[in-house]
């Protein structure tokens, strides 16, 4: 009897497992613009669907950063209207915060905000949109006005089908309010790869970063790394400081207790501090009118308002 029950479970699992998978793939396909929804544009060829580690087959080394942020599945498809074409990529991340993260990684400082989804930015010949746990990327092959208009339309149609709501990572609420009007760009970090592409301390994962934020203000830059508790952040801080103290990438290294300061190869002034379960780094440009120490102190003061 026991064997029969186990057998039934295995059979059910074998049926339901793939069915769940197919439902997810079908749902992804359902979000894509269909023939007739965008004038004379229609899908060209079959969409390509991948999930999990198979994203590598689709975008090779580009897959790593998606996995770092937390990737679930993706579908890509080309559209044509007889004379032109564009590509649409739809990525589902693990959650809205992951989608926020990959969106901030992929978008630049410039570009034109577009009113669609939770946030959208049009840059040159492509448009990124985040909606819920999804990232939509629409790519044209030129920057002509009619092409950009098509990209907006495709993004709006796709985002309109996604009902899930977005959510910002909680760490953003810890950013100092004093400088909020000076923000140029925020990049949410979920690992060393995103950090390495934001500010390069080292090729190695010095900080064992799991969550953080990189903010570019008009006069300085801020990095905030979050850990499970203060002892973990202190340990990572000390380990990183040991490496940075002898790194050829930095000069004028000074260390006092739980703070360090140094200069990078581009003569940026860098200060780093372990504060409770955070590692805070402030970077100022040479000749900046902002006093780095003052900016650093403001960030710490702001964090001090929160109990954690």
């Amino acid at each position: 009897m026991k064997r029969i029950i186990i057998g039934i479970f295995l059979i059910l699992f074998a049926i339901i497992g793939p069915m769940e998978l197919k439902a997810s793939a079908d749902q992804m396909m359902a979000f894509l613009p269909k023939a007739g929804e965008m004038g004379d544009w229609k899908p060209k060829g079959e969409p390509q669907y991948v999930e999990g580690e198979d994203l590598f087959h689709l975008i090779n080394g580009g897959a790593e950063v998606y996995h770092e942020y937390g990737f679930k599945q993706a579908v890509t498809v080309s559209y044509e209207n007889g004379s032109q074409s564009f590509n649409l990529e739809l990525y589902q991340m693990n959650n809205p915060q992951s989608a926020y993260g990959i969106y901030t990684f992929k978008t630049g400082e410039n570009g034109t905000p577009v009113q669609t989804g939770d946030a959208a930015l049009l840059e040159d010949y492509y448009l990124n949109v985040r909606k819920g746990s999804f990232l939509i990327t629409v790519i044209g092959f030129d920057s002509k006005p009619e092409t950009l208009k098509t990209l907006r339309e495709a993004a709006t149609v796709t985002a309109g089908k996604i009902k899930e709501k977005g959510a910002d990572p909680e760490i953003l609420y810890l950013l100092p309010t004093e400088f909020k009007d000076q923000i140029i760009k925020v990049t949410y970090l979920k690992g060393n790869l995103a950090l390495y592409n934001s500010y390069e301390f080292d090729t190695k994962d010095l900080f064992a970063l799991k969550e953080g934020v990189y903010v570019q203000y008009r006069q300085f830059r801020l990095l905030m790394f979050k850990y499970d508790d203060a002892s973990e952040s202190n340990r990572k801080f000390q380990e990183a400081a040991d490496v940075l103290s002898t790194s050829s990438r930095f000069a004028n290294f000074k260390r006092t207790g739980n703070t360090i300061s140094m200069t990078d190869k581009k003569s940026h002034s860098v200060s780093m501090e372990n504060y409770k379960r955070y590692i805070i780094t402030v970077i100022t440009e040479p000749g900046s009118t902002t006093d780095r120490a003052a900016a650093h102190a403001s960030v710490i003061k702001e964090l001090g308002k929160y109990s954690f």
Partner: protein
Amino acid sequence: MGNKISRRTFLKTGTAFGVGSVIGGSVIPDLAAVVENPREVTDLAIVNGENYFENTMKAVRMLGGIGRFNVKGAKVAVLVNSSFSNPGTIVNPDIAIAVIKMCFDAGAREVTGIPNTGERYWNRSSLAEKYGKELEELRSAGPYIKVKIPGGTALKEAEVAKGLLDCDVFINIPIAKNHAGTHYTGVLKNMMGACPYSTNSYFHMGKDGKAAKAYEDVDFLSQCIADLNLLRKPDLCVVDATEFITTNGPFGPGKLKKLHNIVAGTDRVLVDAYCCTFLGLEAKNVAMITMARQHQLGSTDVDAAKIKRA
């Protein structure tokens, strides 16, 4: 005056040329070039302009011509970065077509395209129809063969396309662009295009071979790339530095930089050391370039290089 050479010089040069041919991957200019310019060696040829097909041919001529690379009667493999579709992420097919045409015109016995590239790529070029015959004659890359990598630090073995292992002449044709993992991808990293997913995913998984949690061990990836390049030296590198992404590489979409440059050379490390500067980088800060130099695969001394521009 200037062009006449002595019999002794002629014999010396001819012998050296013959020895170079036997060794393969000739580093000696063809005889005509030697006779005309006995002291001139070009390390890097850079051609600027928007006629990428013609400029590719010009760049190779500036190195001494395709004949320098013993293409006549040879099995040639061309490794072309052609897998993606977003602007600035793949080699402009006009460049690859120019190289393939030069090889056939020079009497190549066969030309293999790696990876296997279909019409979708070639049809992006307005020249695809005109050179359709040459493209149709391209051989398949063949199956992947597992090979050991003697001297590999992180990579001890790899699966590599048979077409690369079998060829007499190897021409590496990458695009210089941004890469999230290594910051730059060019000649050295393009070798991954000759390997399957099973090999390439190992490069990305880090030292412990664990999936999912640690993306990415840049040093490990860079060392694997340097190690992979121990397998086979390209006889010629032709780099697409015409229009390329400077962010969100390798797949894009990203910010496009349009320099309209074709860069050709025979020292893959030198070529990458030069081309990474297009991304605002210095070779000493690109780990795979320094690791390749440590393997003695080439030089990073761009200042000492003989550079010809057109």
